[in-house]
């Protein structure tokens, strides 16, 4: 487990920076957000997600799967102390640049050289090469999304009202199980209809193929202890089935 999986519950962090309501701290951040979102809109997995997009008709040289998982893996697999050195979109820029280098779309040298160029000439324009069909797909994607919803599986392991324990699987690079819930006791409050595909395997962490998702409630006092928790507080989390164990297994 890495520190970034255990953010929930760290103490003595000082005030939340509530006054910073900006979505982007700098203009450049909009561009990396946009690049990421276009990548999601042309990811090869979109012919398996809902709705099924006619991706073969979209003229793009992008031939990879790019989902939120891809982006999260970049940030979660960082050296934990490095994680805190960078602002949110700085981490996106690092992860996405590295992805394009690793997958051979651009070379590190190309990127470095052109970065120097734009550093020296910040107003130098981008190449003018519109791609109307891709633009249409981007707009379509933004309007219709990308769901991993599947038909329900034969066996639903838990029912509303069941007491469950949260598992503590090995998780090195990526997980959807928050650290503060591991090994805690909760109650199923909702069984979502259908099963959900995460599109990316998280390896030993357990996500691979469609599975049921549950909403599970936890008393704050069961998580932080009665002395160190606020009164009358309940935390709800959506958890994939593989992250839950029946109470008798403990």
């Amino acid at each position: 487990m890495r520190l970034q999986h255990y953010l929930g519950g760290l103490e003595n962090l000082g005030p939340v920076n509530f006054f910073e309501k900006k979505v982007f701290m700098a203009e450049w951040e909009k561009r990396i957000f946009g690049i990421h979102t276009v990548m999601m809109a042309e990811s090869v997995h979109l012919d398996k997600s809902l709705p099924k997009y006619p991706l073969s008709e979209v003229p793009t040289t992008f031939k990879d799967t790019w989902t939120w998982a891809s982006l999260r893996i970049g940030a979660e697999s960082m050296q934990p102390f490095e994680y805190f050195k960078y602002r949110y979109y700085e981490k996106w820029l690092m992860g996405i640049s590295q992805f394009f280098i690793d997958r051979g779309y651009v070379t590190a040298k190309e990127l470095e050289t052109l970065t120097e160029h734009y550093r020296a000439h910040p107003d130098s324009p981008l190449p003018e090469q519109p791609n109307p069909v891709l633009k249409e797909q981007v707009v379509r994607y933004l309007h219709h999304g990308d769901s991993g919803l599947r038909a329900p599986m034969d066996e639903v392991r838990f029912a509303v009202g069941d007491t469950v324990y949260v598992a503590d699987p090995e998780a090195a690079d990526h997980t959807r199980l928050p650290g503060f819930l591991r090994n805690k006791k909760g109650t199923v409050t909702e069984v979502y209809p259908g099963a959900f595909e995460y599109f990316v395997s998280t390896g030993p962490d357990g996500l691979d193929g469609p599975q049921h998702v549950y909403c599970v409630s936890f008393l704050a006092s069961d998580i932080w202890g009665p002395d160190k928790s606020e009164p009358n507080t309940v935390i709800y989390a959506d958890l994939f089935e593989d992250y839950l164990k029946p109470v008798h297994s403990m």
Partner: protein
Amino acid sequence: MSSLFEYDKDREAASAAKVRALEALLIKKGVLGSDSVDAVLRHFETVAGPFNGARIVARAWVDAEYKARLLEDTPKAIAELQFQGMTGAEGEHMKAVANSVTVHNLIICTLCSCYPWPVLGLPPYWYKDPVFRSRGVREPRAVLREFGVTIPEDKEVKVWDSSAQIRWFVIPERPAHSEHLNEEQLAALVTPEAMMGVALVPSPPPV
């Protein structure tokens, strides 16, 4: 306070040059069109944003049956309003939770920054910051007090941590002394913070 997120000019200039170089290369290589990124940004100015959430909340305030339907089947009730793109990216599976005299709700994503884009747009920096993500689940009442919201001990606090498909948003309580406002005027009172559960909707100034 905002200095926590403000870095020196050199660092920003280096990032700006790098992202521009990346976008230029991706255009040249055929991964992006030069109009692709702008299409994304335009979407969040015109289609997806807190203006949608505010109108949904206002409708729920003026129509109790609509509110019941919204809580029962959020996507279906939102579809009634015929906004565009309401099941689009990061809104495929949304769920509304309602504040009341007995319950206050707060949304959070401790692992990353999940957020219901179609109804709220993109999240502010503090929502993505590790400080909120750490404290919001451990001491939500203390965090709310910093935002000026004091929740009495006998009122339950529910914190909704996104870690799978669902993106939650909060229907705040309708403020007192707002009987004279119409739906559009009510919508104008609703802030993104109120729909995240870190703020209440204040009463309108007396007429």
